[in-house]
């Protein structure tokens, strides 16, 4: 898994609450059997009109958000469907970090599996970030996971909370499955204690 240590990048703002994963990646793009190439479909129905042209009113189509890698969004971001394709699309589009007041549980977990850092901040701080972006089109942030700090190019400094059990694997970029497989003895012991037949191919 790709680690996340620190990241500096341009901020884009989507100031909407309850952005669901059906919007992040509409269902017609879930038929692919690959894990890559979803960025082109990110926010597809919001980004493009029926002729495939950019909708100028959509946030990510606006010039000041081109090349952004940090997304600041409203509360309950990533709600609805469990589709990990939503995070694949965000990451493939170039986002390494999302900052919102809250997330749906499944989306939040999916971020960690793909080297994307979802940061939770309170509503006032989120609005502060949104205001700064509005006043400064090229507003950048530097996000450092180890020290749990966000520093703006204007001197703004914010600390954020994150559960250490989520933070550490992301910092290290560990292969989750490999880590669990180190607990093979414990898993086998559990299975024996629950009278399961031994696995043929552990």
């Amino acid at each position, binding site marked *: 898994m790709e680690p996340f240590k620190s990241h500096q990048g341009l901020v884009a703002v989507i100031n909407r609450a309850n952005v669901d994963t059906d919007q992040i990646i509409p269902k017609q793009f879930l038929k692919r059997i690959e894990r890559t190439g979803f960025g082109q479909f990110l926010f597809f129905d919001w980004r493009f009109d029926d002729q495939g042209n950019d909708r100028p009113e959509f946030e990510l189509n606006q010039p000041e958000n081109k090349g952004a890698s940090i997304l600041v969004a409203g509360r309950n971001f990533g709600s609805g469907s*469990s589709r990990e394709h939503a995070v694949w699309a965000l990451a493939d589009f170039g986002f390494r970090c999302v900052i919102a007041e809250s997330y749906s549980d499944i989306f939040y977990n999916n971020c960690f599996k793909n080297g994307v850092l979802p940061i939770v901040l309170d509503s006032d701080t989120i609005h502060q970030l949104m205001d700064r972006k509005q006043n400064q089109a090229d507003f950048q942030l530097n996000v450092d996971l180890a020290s749990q700090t966000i520093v703006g190019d204007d001197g703004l400094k914010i600390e954020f909370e994150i559960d250490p059990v989520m933070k550490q694997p992301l910092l290290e970029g560990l292969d989750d499955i490999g880590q669990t497989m180190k607990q093979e003895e414990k898993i086998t012991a559990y299975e024996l204690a629950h009278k399961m037949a031994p696995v043929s191919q552990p």
Partner: protein
Amino acid sequence: MISQAPQTMFQKIWDQHLVHKEPGRQALIYIDLHLVHEVTSPQAFEGLRLANRSVRRPEFTVATPDHNVPTTDRLLPIADPISRQQVETLRENCKEFGIKLYDLDSINQGIVHVIGPELGLTQPGMTIVCGDSHTSTHGAFGAFAFGIGTSEVEHVLATQTLPQTQPKTFEIRVDGELLPGVTSKDLILYIIGQISTSGGSGHVVEYSGQAIRNLTMEQRMTICNMSIEAGARAGLIAPDEITFEYLRGRAHVPQDFEAAIEKWRQLPTDEGAVFDKQITFHANNIAPQITWGTNPGQVTAVDACVPNPSDFSEEHEQQSAAAALEYMGLQPGTPMTEIMVDRVFIGSCTNSRIEDLRLAASLVNGKQVHERVNAMVVPGSGVIKKQAEEEGLDVIFKEAGFDWREAGCSMCLGMNPDQLASGERCASTSNRNFEGRQGKGSRTHLVSPSMAAAAAIAGHFVDIRNLPSEKS
């Protein structure tokens, strides 16, 4: 023996499945049942192949194609080549990794959350996962069941375990009894309207109280199914005699069923156990519900009007409401019963079980679908379709002018050809009214099966409590 502090049902299930816990890491929990469908699994199987890993417990893993499958003639190949490839990929993966597949030619094929309970695979006290948010459905049996992403699907395939952070607990008690014409769909929509689509975030909701205890298993599944729409990690309902009678005799229940029941009787939350959060509702305050917006929390009573954004206190709610009304093409102050519908969809993992179909059929029996309305019924599984046909429900629907289809997810999310055209308005028994969910530009109103059936006949929403047939 040392007496233990009272525990919630969730805590009991969690403790029973804890494989390992060490400081600084998430807890590792054992997964009893892993359900797999074609959309969220191909990348997981590919991951196994790339890492040269096998499926640890193929016997605890069950697959069926549901999201992409056409609901028309099953003898024809799937027309959309990408959908076809995804269904074929599931077939090949199941063969390669030794996983039981209920394929398109099986009567047991259906929506994954419908067939699990139907086959008796879903049982009280289990941990159940699936790469699908509506896995919460299985919580109706007192199982800890939750949706996961594809990376986690791969993790479960490889290890039969999952690292998890223990969620908090949230009791939602519903006192009293639902009034005539009011279904469990209305109840869960009402609850989501009250606590919002993020009200359950980080929590496992246990539903309790008289109104819940009175529900059949089908009705309980509708409640737990939409727990995810309240943002909850999972929904739970304590198993009881209704649960046991539903499961008795089903294909995969334990051989010593009486012993299993004795074990399951230990699961319900102990007297005096403390939840992290608690809220109580009164069933007799609840009317049939209709969503007016673009998330399931944007819902109101059938006898109410489309709200005005200024009715909401929070700024983000006002913004969301304004955007939703524009998308939905609705004017504030319009009575909900004056909203005309173009399409009616009865189906999905929320409301496609036999009771749902019986309920809908009871409202259309001898009547005709409104000439402007295109209506369809999509049973949740091949078994339900067959049972409904044995009961003559298909004839009732077809004579009324409904399409009668094969099992699948269908127009709930329109990954198959069952989609709304842009601007079409649908009364739908599904679970999500998100923008574009049922087709680009589609306008979805979530309702119960009886409300959907009544709208199909009238061409607009009606308060089913005022219909003669509903007075009982």
